[in-house]
């Protein structure tokens, strides 16, 4: 399979994730959609690594996973804190900082 196919899948998944980030109101699911976008990126990286026959791309993919894990940990911590403080778990309600 040519690299282009993988990249096409990556682009579609990325767009789906982006659409999800803008439409979902549950912060948990916003995070999930972010995971989608990150994984789309990962797919592209690994595809390019295969294309070049270079293993360095895999390292980048691993680093992206680490970043994603860190983001998930912090994001979920925030979600839990919100829930603890009986604030509505809804990004549309969390607009204290509006102008």
């Amino acid at each position, binding site marked *: 399979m040519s690299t282009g196919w993988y990249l096409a899948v990556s682009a579609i998944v990325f767009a789906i994730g*982006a659409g999800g*980030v*803008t*439409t*979902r*109101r549950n912060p948990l699911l*916003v995070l999930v959609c972010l995971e989608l976008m990150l994984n789309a990126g990962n797919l592209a990286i690994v595809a390019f690594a295969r294309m070049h026959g270079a293993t360095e791309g895999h390292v980048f993919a691993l680093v992206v996973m680490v970043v994603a894990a860190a983001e998930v940990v912090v994001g979920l911590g925030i979600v839990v804190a919100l829930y603890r403080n009986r604030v509505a778990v809804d*990004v*549309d309600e*969390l*607009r*204290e*900082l*509006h*102008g």
Partner: protein
Amino acid sequence: MSPAEAAWIVLLLPLLGAVVLGLGFRVWRGITAGIIGTAAVGLAFVFTLITLFGLLGRDEEGTRQIASSLYDYVSVGGVDVKMEILVDPLSVVMLLVVTGVSTLIHLYSIAYMRGDAGYTRFFAYLNFFVFSMLVLVLAGNFVLLIVGWGFVGAASYMLISFWYRRTSATKAGIKAFVINVVGDVGLVLGVILLLKETNSVDFLDTFHSAKETFGEDGSGSLTAALLLIMVGAFAKSAQMPLHTWLPDAMEGPTPVSSLIHAATMVTAGVYLIARLHPLMELSPTAQTVGAIIGCATLLVAGTIGLVQTDLKRVIAYSTMSQIGYMIMGVSAGAYVAGMFHLMTHAFFKALLFMAAGSLISAMAGEQNMNKMGGFRKAMPFTFLAFVIGGLALSGIPPFSGFFSKDEILAGVASEGGWHWILWGAGIFGAFLTAVYTWRMIFRAFWGPPVPEAKELEEGHLHHAAEHRNPATGEIEDTGVGFPGPEHHIAERAPAMRMAMSVLAVLAVVGGILGIPHVFTPLEHFLEPVFEEAHALHHVDTSITVLGLIVGSLAGIAGIAVAYVIWAKPTTRGEASTAISSGWQRRFAPVHRLFVNKWYFDEIIDLLIVRPVRGFGRWAHDGFERLVIGGAIVGGTTGAVRGASAVVRRLQSGYLRTYSAVVLTGAAVLVIYFLTQS
């Protein structure tokens, strides 16, 4: 100790006193402060004597002029400004007058200001004033002169507004300061003009190079510079038309009026002209202007003094008038006579003010002469002081004013030509002086005793039920910023009596320093300074004798007129006011003119104050509020507010909107790159 070293110590002592008192006002609250202040100035007087004798011990030829420099103050662009004093007979005479009279007035103040809440502050200010005046007098270059000039203006402001909760006092202080600053600006501009021409600010350098720089007959720029400097001199010495601050300055405590606004500071203009005589000699125009202004001032002030009812203001106008004599004298080349009159005037005018202070105390702060009368028995010592001061002021032989005033007139007259008009005006001024001086004395001490005088005769000093501002009648308390609750009269305060006695003796015998053609130690002492002055040596004996005779006759005539009008008992045995009130009715317009002080305040108000205030109001209401505040500031804030209102709507707080915006941006970027490729 060399004279210069002694002079530096003279300069240092009052400064030390001012600093010690100014910083230690919490520690020395009572009479100690007065003693410290007096001691500082008294020691300065002692060192002045050391300077004097050091100078006398030297050769007369050239070595009595010592310029002593501590360090280079500024050295830039070929101009070397040193921290430099000039000790010569002229400055030493001024030193003697300043420190001597200051010592006595400090002594007087120890008693007079007792009970005032700002006692220590008063002495700190007084010491600061003495220091400033000494800087002015001792300055060896124009820069230091300007420094001293500004300092005395500041000291004068602080002391006029000493009772700072009195609105009238603060207003008078501001008025004095503003007018003095007008003079300061003139002085500074004049000095800058001189600096431009001679490239030096040092007195001696400037004088030595003056002839080469400006030529024998002077030049336009020299005349311009001197006229500008004379603006400073006129403002400081209360000459027309910058004189209006001096009468208002009487709002200050009486010792202040005595020291600053009679004896020392206001004579700074005279000293300045005498100091700059090598330049004045080169510019006949400046001399003429000075002589005419001085003459006009002495007449105008004399006429106003005739009709004023405020005791201190009468003496203030008298001061203006006497300084008019001095300015006229030094401008016409009679430098020694001018300095001589400066000295004797300091004696008798300080004495008169002290006596007036005593009298005002007896009236519990009241200054209106209409309410005074018959104090002769109640206050014999004050009465005596008034009489001695009045006689000296009127130029009655053999009192000090007699010799000094007539020496000025003789010096002016010996110029010949139209200067005889000035001489005639001076004689008429002497007549006016005698009239208003003795009007004051007759009204305060003759006639039926007023209740306050009767109370005092019975041994009880009158105290007002409530303290009032004598000018406006507002009720005051006696805390900080208002006069204290106590009143002190010379009869009961030894310190006041001591100071007044010394001055009285000096006022009587002061003339001995300059009896024309008989005994002239002062002239002899000052001669080296003025040896180049052309008017010094040829005063005819005939002119002198004529002046002495006519002058004393004018004085006696003035006293006689004053007696007839204000003191002569009528058939009913009491003083009549019929004559004066009859004259008031007959010459109503003239009387009104005099009472309103020739409308100088109103003219200045119309010509300067109103336009400036109108401009200020326009600048505030029109420019500042509309253009600056409205258009520029308001416009800026409006623009920022409007723009931020737009931007703020973008900050909706909706996370999803933000991400949509980011994604839109990303999409736009990608499309942009696609279309570019």
